[in-house]
């Protein structure tokens, strides 16, 4: 075993031993995200009580009827200020709802016009209009159903159709789109809160490095024949492993107590989790490199992490953001972490869906690490 590896291992083991030895801090690290996630899950999970989305809802329309009525309804829906309509085939609509890119999709069946007009005058059964919706955004479903009814009834009441419609001549067949056994609202809040508190842990690791410098430990480490890569790399490795341990424990509790399942790809989940753990570690390293005093650095770092977490959709789902902000937050790494964990848990997406979040998180981690190496002051301890 090379002496460099022995030294690297000693540095990593030291970080983990210190982390595990402080039982109270360990308990807080694990317990806090569980409690807060449980609270948010409860808050957002049940009824979806009457929130107003701040942006236009992206809704897909699959028109299998291609009738005058469905074309007219489509035109009418297109003019609705609260909707952003995209016409597309049914299977594509289903995929986009499943991946969270569409809030919902409406599927007009073949012969919808004939069946609906027949039902309206009492000569036939009501047709079923499928409403595919994202179960994490349950408040969207009644809104889209209401708007659909409103626009269909408006069109049916015009002279070129049948006159005055008084009752809704179709059924809405609500279909929650997820490959998992069923949607679990705790899954999203566990993703969000894990990300928030692991980033806090990353900050603590950065602050600990600043303290090591203040207390002379860093000077002592640098006296050993170790390269900068070993000294900084071991910090990243230690913090990454701690973050992975926290994520593992939090999700084990989430599985056991709140029935949060990895309905998608387990390797994909592990990939996203590891990439995010690396991001938390490099964030801490960057903070240590840029920070001067412990007090000031802690304040600025906490503020930055809270902003990152908020924009990442960890507190409030990002679909509630204004449209422009939703695009802006695509440049926020936490957004990819939240989306990646969501994709692998309740959305039940395949391994391929983990590639983009993982690559982006690793990319941000590399950027943070580069900044840390560039700005790290090796002269003043």
């Amino acid at each position, binding site marked *: 075993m090379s002496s460099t590896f022995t030294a690297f291992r000693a540095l990593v083991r030291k970080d983990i031993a210190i982390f595990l*030895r402080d039982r109270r801090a360990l308990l807080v690290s694990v317990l806090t995200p569980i409690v807060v996630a449980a609270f948010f899950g409860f808050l957002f999970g049940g009824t979806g009580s009457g929130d107003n989305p701040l942006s236009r809802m992206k809704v897909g329309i699959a028109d299998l009827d291609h009738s005058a009525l469905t074309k007219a309804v489509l035109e009418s829906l297109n003019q609705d200020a609260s909707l952003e309509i995209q016409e597309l085939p049914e299977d594509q609509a289903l995929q986009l709802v499943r991946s969270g890119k569409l809030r919902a999709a409406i599927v007009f069946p073949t012969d919808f016009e004939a069946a609906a007009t027949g039902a309206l005058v009492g000569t036939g059964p009501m047709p079923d209009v499928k409403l595919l919706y994202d179960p994490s955004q349950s408040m969207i479903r009644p809104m889209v159903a209401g708007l659909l009814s409103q626009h269909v009834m408006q069109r049916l009441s015009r002279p070129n159709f049948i006159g005055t419609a008084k009752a809704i001549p179709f059924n809405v067949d609500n279909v929650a789109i997820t490959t998992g056994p069923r949607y679990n609202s705790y899954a999203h809040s566990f993703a969000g809160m894990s990300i928030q508190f692991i980033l806090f842990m990353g900050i603590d690791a950065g602050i600990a490095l600043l303290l090591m410098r203040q207390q002379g430990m860093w000077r002592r480490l640098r*006296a050993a024949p170790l390269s900068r890569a070993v000294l900084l790399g071991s910090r990243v490795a230690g913090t990454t492993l701690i973050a992975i341990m926290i994520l593992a424990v939090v999700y084990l509790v989430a599985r056991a107590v709140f029935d949060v399942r990895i309905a998608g790809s387990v390797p994909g989940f592990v990939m996203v989790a590891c990439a995010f753990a690396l991001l938390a570690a490099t964030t801490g390293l960057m903070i240590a490199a840029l920070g001067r005093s412990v007090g000031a650095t802690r304040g600025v770092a906490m503020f930055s992490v809270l902003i990152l977490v908020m924009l990442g959709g960890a507190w409030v789902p990002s679909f509630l953001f204004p449209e422009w902000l939703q695009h802006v937050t695509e440049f926020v790494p936490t957004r990819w972490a939240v989306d990646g964990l969501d994709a692998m848990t309740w959305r039940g997406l395949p391994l391929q869906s983990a590639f983009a979040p993982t690559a982006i998180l690793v990319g941000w981690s590399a950027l943070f690490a580069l900044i840390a190496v560039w700005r790290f002051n090796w002269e003043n301890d």
Partner: protein
Amino acid sequence: MNLIADHLQKKFGAITAVADVSFAAEPGKILGLLGPNGAGKSTTISMLAGLIKPDSGKVQIDATTLGVGADPTKRKLGLVTQEIALLEELPARMNLEFFGGLYGLSGAALGARIAAVLELTSLSDRARDPPSTFSGGMRRRLNIACALLHEPQILLLDEPTVGVDPQSRNAIFETIEVLAGQGRTVVYTTHYMEEVERLCDRIVIVDHGRVLADDTLTGLLAGAHLGNKLTLKYDVTPDVAALAEIRNLPGVVQVELAGTEVSVSANDLGTAAPRVLERLAARGFSCQELTSRRANLEDVFLALTGRTLRDT
């Protein structure tokens, strides 16, 4: 192993921390680096330990020039930092395992070295306790033990007795003397003269980043021509004319005034003391208290810099 500081210079921005420092430390000897706070001792130690690169000059260990970072030559050095650099939460043994690991030690070899340094520093019975439960002296000793695990031939001790009680200080001194007796080269920085007088074979006095003197204690005292020191305490402050008169007396080297206290350095105190007392009495100054002592390093430092170590 010989450790040579060859015209070291280091600046931090506009501030010159070390202007020009040169000296040589020899195996089996303790070299004292004495100077006030801010004299450049710690920066010099940082360069000697390979923590920072000199702007100019070099550090040589025998024929090898010391580098920074992963330079394997650093394996020959052991640094005891001024700050107690320990993992307070972990037991003493785990601290030693950690620091040994930094130098590639593991397994039985590491275990043997841990036992040896614990015995040397008299901490064997506290190996399972964390440093947070130790006294200041014990923590200092553990700090030294951590630097000895890899058996360095050169030991750099940067003010290793700060905040330590006299008993622990003596224990640390004894440990350092044992290490030097084993043939190690020891560089010891401090701003306590007593420590240097007690421990060091050779003394390098630095101030403002420069070497002011480099010699043995005897050589420094002889070279400064300070002789012995007479301190006279009066009710009132003797006037300038009186001081000028005694300054011109034969054998008087130096005269200083601090409040109502007059300090006179003289080569032959037996001859000079009665004359000084007589002249001042003739001018109406009646001596209340008189003490005499041999000149020490403080006097040498004062003579070299014009100030005391504690002024700074």
